């Protein structure tokens, strides 16, 4: 009898903190399945949050026994392997044609990184060291791999919360951005139409573009050249026209495989004892601030440009698509334009700004890594 009862002894090790994490995991799963919000990330993260918060969970390291998720974390995220593989896939998915046909869209990618720098200052004001503040601010890159890269580089102890915040907010872009955009734009501005000229980008230009971006970014921010290099390598595979099977594998099989493991591996950092702390909650809040100010920065920059080009007005919502969350942000912005006027399609402009955000977010990470030790 006592042997049978011993099977249930572990129930006594359940804490209220674990129960809270199960609830958080359940909410993430609900958002992924019920609300169809980035299910590829939220469902594995939610499930992983439950998995690692079971008492004496073997999925995480317990004493000398190495847990499977910790093993995956060390072998895939701590050493940045998964990030590079994922960036090849993202690069292969990115079509830079809308950006090449309207290069000024790149400005919105830069403007929408404002939230990163604003949050670094705010985190510093709240008492975080400049390295931790930079790692927290980079959540605003809206780009998980870049957040992990900068956090790992500075060896921040908040890496778990940063990763979780970065991926959660990327998934929550459809909830975060619309109210912020509405707050800083008028209905009239959201109805601005933008003509789109297509089909004037040659194959040669599309092939040379990723090579030149790698060279320029690599010279200016050499510390992040691996990230931008892998992103552009993926894009070169896509555009060269002779590696279609590799491009297809990078876009589908490889990306899916990495994403599948990434979500659940990230959850290894969602242990109740580390996650439910005032600092973590502060980081989660600061991450939200970063996303909000990215959006505001992009929109206000577009409004500023409109002051100088009254005859060629830009729908300010395009500025909000300058964050790196691709393609969610472009979709959100286009949907908002169509909500105001069903015939107003600004998708291609939004995609142009959104892919430029991919480049700009990595650049921002590289610039931060380069600047902080020098200043």
């Amino acid at each position, binding site marked *: 009898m006592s042997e049978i009862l011993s099977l249930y002894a572990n129930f006594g090790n359940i804490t209220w903190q674990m129960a809270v994490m199960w609830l958080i995991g359940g909410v993430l799963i609900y958002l992924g399945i019920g609300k169809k919000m980035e299910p590829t990330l939220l469902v594995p993260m939610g499930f992983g949050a439950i998995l690692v918060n079971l008492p004496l969970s073997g999925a995480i390291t317990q004493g000398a026994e190495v847990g499977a998720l910790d093993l995956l974390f060390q072998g895939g995220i701590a050493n940045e392997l998964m990030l590079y593989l994922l960036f090849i896939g993202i690069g292969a998915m990115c079509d830079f044609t809308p950006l090449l046909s309207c*290069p000024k869209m790149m400005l919105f990618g*830069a403007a929408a990184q404002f939230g990163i720098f604003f949050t670094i*200052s705010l985190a510093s004001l709240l008492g975080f060291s400049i390295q931790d503040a930079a790692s927290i601010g980079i959540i605003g890159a809206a780009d998980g791999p870049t957040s992990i890269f900068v956090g790992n580089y500075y060896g921040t102890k908040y890496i778990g919360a940063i990763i979780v915040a970065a991926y959660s907010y990327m998934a929550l872009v459809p909830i975060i951005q619309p109210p912020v955009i509405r707050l800083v734009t008028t209905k009239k501005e959201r109805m601005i139409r933008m003509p789109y000229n297509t089909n004037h980008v040659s194959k040669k230009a599309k092939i040379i573009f990723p090579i030149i971006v790698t060279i320029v970014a690599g010279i200016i*921010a050499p510390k992040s050249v691996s990230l931008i290099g892998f992103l552009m390598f993926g894009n070169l595979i896509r555009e060269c026209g002779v590696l279609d099977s590799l491009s297809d594998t990078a876009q589908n099989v490889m990306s899916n495989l990495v994403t599948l493991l990434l979500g659940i591996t990230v959850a290894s950092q969602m242990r109740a004892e580390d996650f439910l702390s005032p600092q973590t909650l502060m980081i989660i809040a600061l991450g939200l601030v970063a996303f909000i100010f990215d959006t505001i920065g992009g929109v206000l920059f577009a409004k500023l440009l409109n002051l100088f080009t009254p005859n060629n007005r830009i729908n300010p919502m395009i500025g909000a698509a300058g964050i790196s969350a691709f393609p969610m942000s472009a979709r959100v912005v286009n949907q908002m334009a169509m909500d105001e006027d069903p015939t107003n399609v600004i998708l291609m402009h939004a995609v142009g700004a959104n892919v430029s955000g991919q480049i*700009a977010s990595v650049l921002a990470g590289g*610039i931060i890594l380069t600047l902080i030790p020098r200043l």
Partner: protein
Amino acid sequence: MTNLLFSLKVMGIGLIGIFSVTILLILVMMLLTKIFPAGKEN
């Protein structure tokens, strides 16, 4: 306070840096589409 001032410096120089690289890349893109126009290829 020192951290805050330092972070404001990072913000200023960082934003200038990112916009300067962006402008450089815009020029590269414009140049690329000029040197390799789609019409010629077609």
